[in-house]
């Protein structure tokens, strides 16, 4: 009897478990996760779940029959990995020996550590990663509440939009010159700033944060430029940490997420892949031949599913003793995809926008102040598109990403 252990019970862990079963693996399958909830969909957490009371069952992933005999170990974070012994240690003291392992522990929000004295207030400060996080923030988003959002990435901007719709006063603070500038670039970032401001969000951009004010409850945020922005609620959406502490000392390269080869096998610090140990989701730093051979992490919603489906057949084949030749012969080249809903704006993107040349961002179709499709070029290659509205047009570029820049 063999055993596959999936560590991390989010979308990536779920999809990997489904895929390994679908690929014919029928022995023991254990899914261990730090959260107590069964796997659920996270995008609603910064939108619907903040706006109205949404129960777990509304966001839970439907459980396929193929996972009927999975052993769930929820509320059980992993604390260590011993590759030699092929064994995972859980924080509750449990031990899980494995024949195949899937690393799916994902990310957590980076919290600001502004050292005292005086000690920093805790009450009124939030982050949004889990269902419980979102439920706690929802209680504080009362009409008229002064909400300061730290960070102007997608989560920060979605929370800002939702808080405005709920009648809060919203100030968004970020070190970046425009909201969402790192993923989207200046053209769309500036336009999204204009649209947020039209809805009443104020921005304090190009500034850091030096202190929280308040005793037990936060009352304000002091900016590096010296001003204090009053706050009843602070949402920290700065960036993320990789949940890889449990892999420290295992020999796996965890310098940024978990380094993988194109079959998503974890790679050791010495460069060798670890057979039977795979990585999915936000943590997986893998080369994508759609673009080049540089391993990168991709924090987009479709990647846990794509990587999970890649791992399933590869791991099942390995456990049958077939090795990895079949997987290696089938290159893994997923098209990154994400969307964001802010007010009534649907932002949809495909590709790797961050790879664009500095002067490689151009409007392909439409009008930036209305509906628009923006292209992202590296050399003469279209590496991505992003659109505000115009969804059928945005979708029409899917097949040409990674190919020559379209003639217009």
């Amino acid at each position, binding site marked *: 009897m063999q055993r596959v252990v999936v560590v991390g019970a989010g979308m990536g862990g779920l999809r990997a478990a489904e895929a390994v079963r679908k690929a014919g693996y029928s022995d023991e399958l254990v899914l261990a996760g730090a959260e107590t909830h069964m796997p659920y969909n996270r995008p609603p957490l910064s939108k619907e779940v903040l706006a109205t009371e949404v129960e777990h069952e509304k966001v839970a992933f439907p459980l396929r029959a193929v996972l009927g005999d999975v052993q769930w170990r929820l509320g059980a974070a992993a604390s260590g990995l011993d590759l030699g012994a092929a064994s995972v240690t859980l924080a509750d003291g449990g031990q899980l020996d494995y024949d195949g392992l899937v690393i799916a522990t994902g990310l957590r929000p980076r919290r600001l550590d502004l050292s005292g004295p005086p000690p920093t207030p805790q009450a009124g400060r939030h982050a949004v990663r889990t269902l419980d996080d979102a439920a706690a923030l929802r209680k504080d988003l009362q009409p008229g509440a002064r909400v300061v959002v730290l960070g102007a990435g997608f989560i920060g901007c979605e929370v800002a939009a939702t808080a405005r719709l709920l009648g809060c006063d919203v100030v968004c603070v970020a070190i970046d010159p425009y909201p969402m500038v790192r993923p989207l670039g200046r053209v769309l970032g500036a336009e999204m700033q204009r649209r947020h401001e039209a809805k009443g969000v104020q921005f304090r951009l190009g500034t850091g944060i030096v202190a929280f004010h308040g005793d037990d409850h936060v009352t304000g945020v002091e900016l590096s430029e010296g001003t204090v922005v009053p706050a009843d609620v602070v949402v920290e959406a700065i960036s993320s940490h990789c949940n890889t502490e449990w892999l420290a000392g295992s020999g796996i390269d965890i310098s940024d997420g978990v380094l993988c080869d194109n079959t998503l096998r974890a790679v050791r610090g010495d460069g060798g892949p670890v057979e039977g140990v795979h990585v999915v989701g936000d943590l997986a730093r893998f080369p994508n031949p759609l673009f080049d051979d540089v391993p990168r992490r991709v924090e987009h919603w*479709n990647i846990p599913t794509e990587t999970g489906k890649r791992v399933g057949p590869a791991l099942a084949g390995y456990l049958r003793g077939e090795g990895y030749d079949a997987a290696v012969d089938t290159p893994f080249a997923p098209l990154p995809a994400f969307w964001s809903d802010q007010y009534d704006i649907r932002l949809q993107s495909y590709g790797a926008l961050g790879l664009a040349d500095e002067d490689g961002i151009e409007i392909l179709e439409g009008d930036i102040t209305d509906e628009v499709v923006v292209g992202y070029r590296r050399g003469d290659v279209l590496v991505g598109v992003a659109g505000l509205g115009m969804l059928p047009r945005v979708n029409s570029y899917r097949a040409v990403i990674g190919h020559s820049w379209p003639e217009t």
Partner: protein
Amino acid sequence: MKVVVDMDKCQDHGQCAFAAPEVFLIDPGTSKLVVLQDEPDEAFRDQVEEAADVCPVQAITIED
């Protein structure tokens, strides 16, 4: 196999139409989702499962 789309959840992202074009269509005129086959043949199972997986709002379920 029966395909059920929760139309309260559906926001016409259209990812399903790429995964299973014989089963789901985004109407070019209205940009709204049209389910072409409620009870597709077993041969479409992989495609329909893929469509359910890639639906951003998880509005698609498969009933056997």
